[in-house]
């Protein structure tokens, strides 16, 4: 059987294997929407807390964003296979979310939470999650987001209220909104390329 096989066919088989393996592992990249969603949620919480002076602004908005993310993620996750990388990603972001929520809620209830502490905690947590995620996914753009968040966290410890607010709003804009949209565009163009190059439907 093998004597009739041309080297081109053998190369095609190897290339098919490589393509399909990477296809199977590519299950964690279409999360751009969640970055945008959380970016918008942060803006809503900030606007509510600033304009309405509502003590419940952050816990309510974050809980709502968490529930919405869970519902939307369960819809897309049902269509995707389970991978170790996917589970690692979920673990990182879940742990970060729960830690931040518990910490912020406790500090808020004890009256020890101010703008600087909030930005420092959120920035440090998001920096850690983005960094870990970027190393696993080998995604330089996400590592840049981690650096921005860490920078915001450090800046919040030393700067005035106004500067801290500006730094936080800017970090949200670049690392949530812009990065999320970039992620969605990147996934969409990859999807189009995959669909154009697909061809394993014959036995």
């Amino acid at each position, binding site marked *: 059987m093998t004597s009739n096989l041309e080297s081109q066919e053998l190369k095609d088989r190897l290339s098919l294997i490589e393509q399909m393996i990477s296809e199977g592992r590519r299950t964690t990249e279409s999360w751009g929407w969640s970055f945008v969603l959380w970016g918008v949620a942060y803006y809503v919480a900030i606007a509510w807390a600033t304009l309405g002076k509502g003590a419940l602004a952050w816990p309510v908005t974050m809980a709502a964003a968490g529930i919405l993310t869970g519902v939307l993620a369960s819809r897309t996750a049902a269509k995707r296979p389970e991978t170790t990388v996917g589970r690692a990603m979920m673990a990182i972001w879940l742990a970060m979310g729960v830690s931040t929520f518990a910490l912020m809620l406790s500090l808020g209830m004890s009256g020890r939470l101010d703008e600087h502490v909030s930005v420092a905690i959120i920035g440090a947590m998001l920096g850690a999650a983005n960094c870990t995620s970027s190393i696993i996914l080998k995604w330089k753009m996400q590592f840049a987001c981690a650096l921005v968040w860490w920078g915001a966290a450090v800046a919040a410890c030393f700067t005035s209220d106004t500067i801290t607010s500006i730094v936080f709003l800017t970090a949200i804009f670049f690392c949530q909104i812009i990065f999320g949209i970039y992620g969605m565009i990147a996934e969409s163009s990859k999807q189009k390329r995959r669909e154009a190059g697909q061809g*394993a439907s014959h036995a």
Partner: protein
Amino acid sequence: MPELPELNPVIHGKLRLALLSLLSGVEEAEFTWLRAKTGSTDGNLGAQLLKLEEAGYVAVEKKFVQRKPQTLYRMTESGRQALTDYVQALRQLLGAAMES
């Protein structure tokens, strides 16, 4: 001159090879996901998956999720070994083809 290896005919089919390769990158995958990734028809996909199952290369689990039936496929250890052997054989054959 060393003898050239034979390619495993169960894996050599293009769709079966694609399926095993896809399953090697995930823990388990649903039938519909495999169909979307390979662009295959239900009938052809089912037939090729059955061949892989009969060869012991994939394991099947059927369950209900939110009252909807779901068929999950998972690569077995012998499937992983067979794919590894197949890739090694391909590389050997390619090396021989380059030399000749």
